[in-house]
């Protein structure tokens, strides 16, 4: 647990930006998905990204670990600029964990093997150590008893918590969440959000695309609103929800909070 504590210490908010997006543009063919995105995220900051579907919010965070390629502008993560250099991409991906909407656990491996795969093969950790670390994180997401099961035997909420634990096993500096609760049954959303709140409290740098406005209110340092590929508004959550500046933001908020 000492290692985790150390990590928490170095993860305290500082002024040093850990993610810098400057003038980022991206097109899918003719379609301009990201338009001049400028965003700096400080170490330990927790950012929630929201917006209507098709607004480019998922594409933006997927650019940060190069699951999507940007065509203009620069993205610097942890001091390393993302180019087509494979070595640099792999370096950044080691430092950036990602949790997906559809969990994307490996169905042919047990929960424990899912968690130890990357530490063993990417970080070259001995198997025994990797399993110890994995069990620590599985305990932290409160499902150590499922370690020997296969993902197909778990509920959606449990699978998503395994996915979070799997990312944490790589000891990442940044965690990206791409709509982590959108594919879950209503009864399971809370258990995943609780895990994420716990993670936020430990000081992890987080960027989270979500429609869970309660989560945004409680943990976010900043909320970002996107539409049609642009960042329209960004503010700290209290101001964002109570005093939105842009008409588009007001419309969006009235639609998702109004019912």
């Amino acid at each position, binding site marked *: 647990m000492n290692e985790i504590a150390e990590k928490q210490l170095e993860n305290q908010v500082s002024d040093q930006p850990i993610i810098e997006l400057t003038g980022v543009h991206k097109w899918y063919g003719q379609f301009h998905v990201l338009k001049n995105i400028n965003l700096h995220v400080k170490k330990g900051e927790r950012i929630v990204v929201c917006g209507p579907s098709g607004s480019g919010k998922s594409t933006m965070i997927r650019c940060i*670990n190069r*699951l999507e390629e940007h065509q203009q502008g620069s993205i610097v993560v942890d001091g390393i600029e993302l180019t087509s250099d494979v070595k640099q991409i*792999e*370096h950044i*991906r*080691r430092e*950036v*964990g*990602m949790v*997906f909407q*559809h969990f*994307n*656990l*490996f*169905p*042919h491996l047990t929960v424990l093997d899912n968690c130890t*795969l*990357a530490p063993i*093969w*990417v970080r070259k950790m001995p198997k025994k150590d990797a399993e110890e670390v994995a069990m620590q994180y599985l305990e932290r997401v409160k499902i150590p008893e499922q370690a020997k099961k*296969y*993902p*197909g*035997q778990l509920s959606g909420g449990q699978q998503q918590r395994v996915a979070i634990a799997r*990312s944490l096993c*790589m000891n990442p500096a940044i965690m990206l969440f791409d709509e982590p609760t959108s594919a879950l049954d209503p009864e399971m959303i809370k258990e995943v959000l609780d895990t994420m709140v716990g993670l936020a409290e430990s000081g992890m740098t987080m960027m989270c695309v979500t429609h869970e406005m309660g989560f945004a209110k409680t943990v976010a340092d900043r909320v970002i609103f996107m539409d049609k590929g642009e960042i329209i508004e960004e503010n700290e959550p209290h101001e964002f929800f109570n005093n939105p500046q842009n008409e588009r933001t007001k419309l969006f908020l009235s639609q998702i909070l109004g019912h």
Partner: protein
Amino acid sequence: MADFTPSPDLAPPSLTVGPLGWVRTNLFPDPFNSVLTLIALYLVYLTLPPAIDWALLKADWSGTSREACVSGGACWVFVHARMNTFLYGFFPESGYWRVNLLYFVTIALLIPLFVKQFKYKVILAAINLVAFPLLVWILMSGGVFGLSHVETSNWGGLSLTLILAAIGCVAALPFGVLLALGRQATNMPAVKTMCVVFIEFWRGVPLITVLFMSSVMLPLFLPEGTSFDKLLRAMIGITLFQSAYMAEVIRGGLQAIPKGQYEAADAMGLTYWKKTGLVILPQALKIVIPGIVNTFIALFKDTTLVIIIGLLEVLGMVQTALNDPNWLGYSTEGYVFTAAVFWVFCFSMSRFSQRLEARLHTGHKR
């Protein structure tokens, strides 16, 4: 507020379970299916008793020449008398033990794959990949360790069938995997094009043509004086041909893997080969086990085509035996025997694939 208590489970109606229930649901569910069942039973009654009569009850089993076949049933004496050529081809009799040893070792290597507790299946398979062809060469061809040299033209019968099929499978699978991966490599157009051209070329020509070319045309293109073995050429031809089919089967598996699996592996920082070897291929190969085994079975039966270039595997040997003036007129027995041999091997492969699928199933839903 009242608590919710689930209603108790009730027993199912008695006619839907047990043997009676099975008969009812599978044989006589409605009038139309009942008629079909009765017709099928009648056809079985018409064909099965005479077949058993011919093949077993009235058949002649012992003797050395056609004079022993008098009863009018099947004359298995023919198969018995010619068994050695069916099994060993024209291998010198003093070397039969070498072929027997090869049969024995092959079976010994296969058994662990069926034992559930055996943990090193992957390692064993990897060893087989290299060691098996080498072992075949040493035992069959000889020339080393004091074994007398036997020309490949003397190889034949079931041993040749098995060697062609086994080497074909062992070599076509890894080639097929590489070709399938190459065809998927959209970021390397040159590699992709080469793989597409290779696959489409070999799938587009009949195996007979490939064998014929390897035997007749290839020597014309080689420089004067160089000769390499006819059997080896046939083997390479079969391998390249089957690896093209294998590649397409495996590509089907690769395409069935959801994009999210690739993304999750990428996001962890796995390199291309680690991602492919640890995440993608284990899942893709599992999905296409039926297709892979299908290709293996096709390959096993396609080995009979080597007769076109004068190699006599088990069917070729049977046909040669049928031309023997002493045994004219027993082609039914010969072909029934050959069919039975092929059926036993192909059916075993099919059962093995089903076992493998059941074993590798991890209860996942995507």
